[in-house]
């Protein structure tokens, strides 16, 4: 079987898995998982960031420990705990998809909280103080004055985090979730004679997706640096956040 034939036979399976007669799989599942894993992590990540910076140690201290624990553990380990032990605690039946999604949300939340925190801290404190002295409450100042600016500053980091999340979904392979790495291995197992080519195609699929997105992040960063009044300062601020925090697995 030549590589062309392999691609002709399996490309649909590679892209969508058993869908529509079975569950969604392949590259589509990878994207759905990554998008879900990042978007759902937003509120949690924001809550963690705000809790970490809160003036009350009773809140900031445990939250800081949780963030450290999650960031010090391999995602694979988090995944195993979620898969094998979470159901015994909650008594809930959850599928591999939800397990993977849950682990990604938890993991992303810890990383997002750092991105948010860096973003909030990089904002001149005058902004927050001005909001407070205008009579806004602590939370109202955050919501109305601080967050909108932070979000815009953090956009490139968020796109990069999305790239990391896409790569993280590959671990679904280990729990038998039919995302694209699993599907590629399955195809490899059926074809038997083309491992180099098949894994190169897999790598290429990830590359196109992730490289495209990281170029997009780069473009956002550029555009932002140009348009922003405090451009110089802020682009410097988003840079370390990107290189230190978002690179995972």
């Amino acid at each position, binding site marked *: 079987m030549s590589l062309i034939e392999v691609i002709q*036979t*399996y490309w*649909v*399976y590679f892209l969508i*898995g*058993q869908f529509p*007669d*079975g569950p969604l799989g392949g590259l589509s599942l990878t994207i759905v998982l990554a998008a879900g894993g990042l978007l759902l992590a937003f509120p949690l990540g924001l809550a963690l960031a705000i809790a970490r910076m809160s003036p009350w140690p009773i809140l900031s201290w445990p939250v800081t*420990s949780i963030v450290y*624990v999650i960031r*010090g553990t391999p995602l694979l380990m988090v995944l195993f705990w979620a*898969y*094998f*032990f979470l*159901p*015994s*605690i909650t*008594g809930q*039946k*959850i*599928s*591999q998809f939800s397990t993977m999604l849950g682990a990604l949300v938890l993991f992303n939340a810890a990383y997002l909280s750092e991105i948010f925190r860096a973003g909030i801290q990089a904002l001149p404190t005058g902004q927050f103080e001005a909001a407070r002295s205008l009579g806004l409450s602590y939370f109202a100042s955050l919501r109305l004055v601080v967050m909108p600016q932070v979000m815009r500053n953090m956009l490139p980091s968020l796109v990069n985090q999305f790239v990391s999340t896409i790569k993280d979904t590959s671990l679904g*392979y*280990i*729990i*038998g979730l*039919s995302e694209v790495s699993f599907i590629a*291995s*399955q195809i*490899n*197992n*059926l074809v*038997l004679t083309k*491992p180099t080519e098949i894994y190169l195609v897999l790598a290429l699929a990830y590359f196109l997706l992730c490289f495209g997105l990281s170029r997009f992040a780069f473009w956002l960063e550029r555009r932002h640096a140009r348009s922003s009044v405090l451009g110089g300062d802020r682009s410097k601020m988003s840079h370390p956040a990107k290189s230190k925090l978002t690179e995972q697995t």
Partner: protein
Amino acid sequence: MRYARFISSFILLATLLSPLARADQLADIKKKGEIIVGVLGTDEPNSFIDPATRKIVGYDVDLSEAIAKKLGVKLTLKQLSVAARIPELEQGRIDLLAASLTHNKEREAKIDFSLTTLVTGQRVMVRKDSGITAVPQLAGKKVLTVKGGTQEPNIRKAVPTADVITFETSLQAFIGLQQGKGLGYVNDEVSLFNNYGKLGDAQKDYIILPQNLSIEPLALGIRKGESGLKKEVDDALRALEKSGEAERLFFKWYGPNSKVKLDKRTFKIDSDKVDG
């Protein structure tokens, strides 16, 4: 150390709150009109992907279909890794396991089994040029197999000094053997014969060692204590045996016209007892 305490209390919680006792599972299945069966999807010919239809097919799948039909419910297949089979069943994420599952005494402590649906040996495939002709010669050699099944403990028992390397799926171990990354590849006989069949012209370079590491009765897995469901499943299997359908399915997947090429069926679906 605060992390240690965090983790240990977490574990304590996890082990104290074992899965909650549930109402009768059979009634649940009938109520929702659907039975969720866990399959591997990576172990030809028991369950694997058919490239043309992108559906999981195989002996395990046909048996599951027959059972779903008997119960009058819809069949939903769920793909699992070998290592996750028993935890998935115990935690109730699936109703039934049809996943090349060996019925043995150790596992009886965790789950229940249906009548034995297939009896197969477990053997080792080697490359001819390795010069290996008997299992004991694998001592100190690299042997490849799948993670989380009975294959690993069985080969360790047979050849304690073998260097066993495991992968997520058995076919990856098979590819490892083809590439020469190990000298032996351990699997259930039916899967080995199937893999051998797929080798085509290269068959002359491989042999399957004659010795059985063990005899493996494969069965469907049922959650502990679900006697209602077990009875229905066993009845369905008995009916398959009686009508000759079981025999037909056996030859469909394992017979002379399949890649496995077995010419006789040495067992009947009639017992759920195993020894050893």
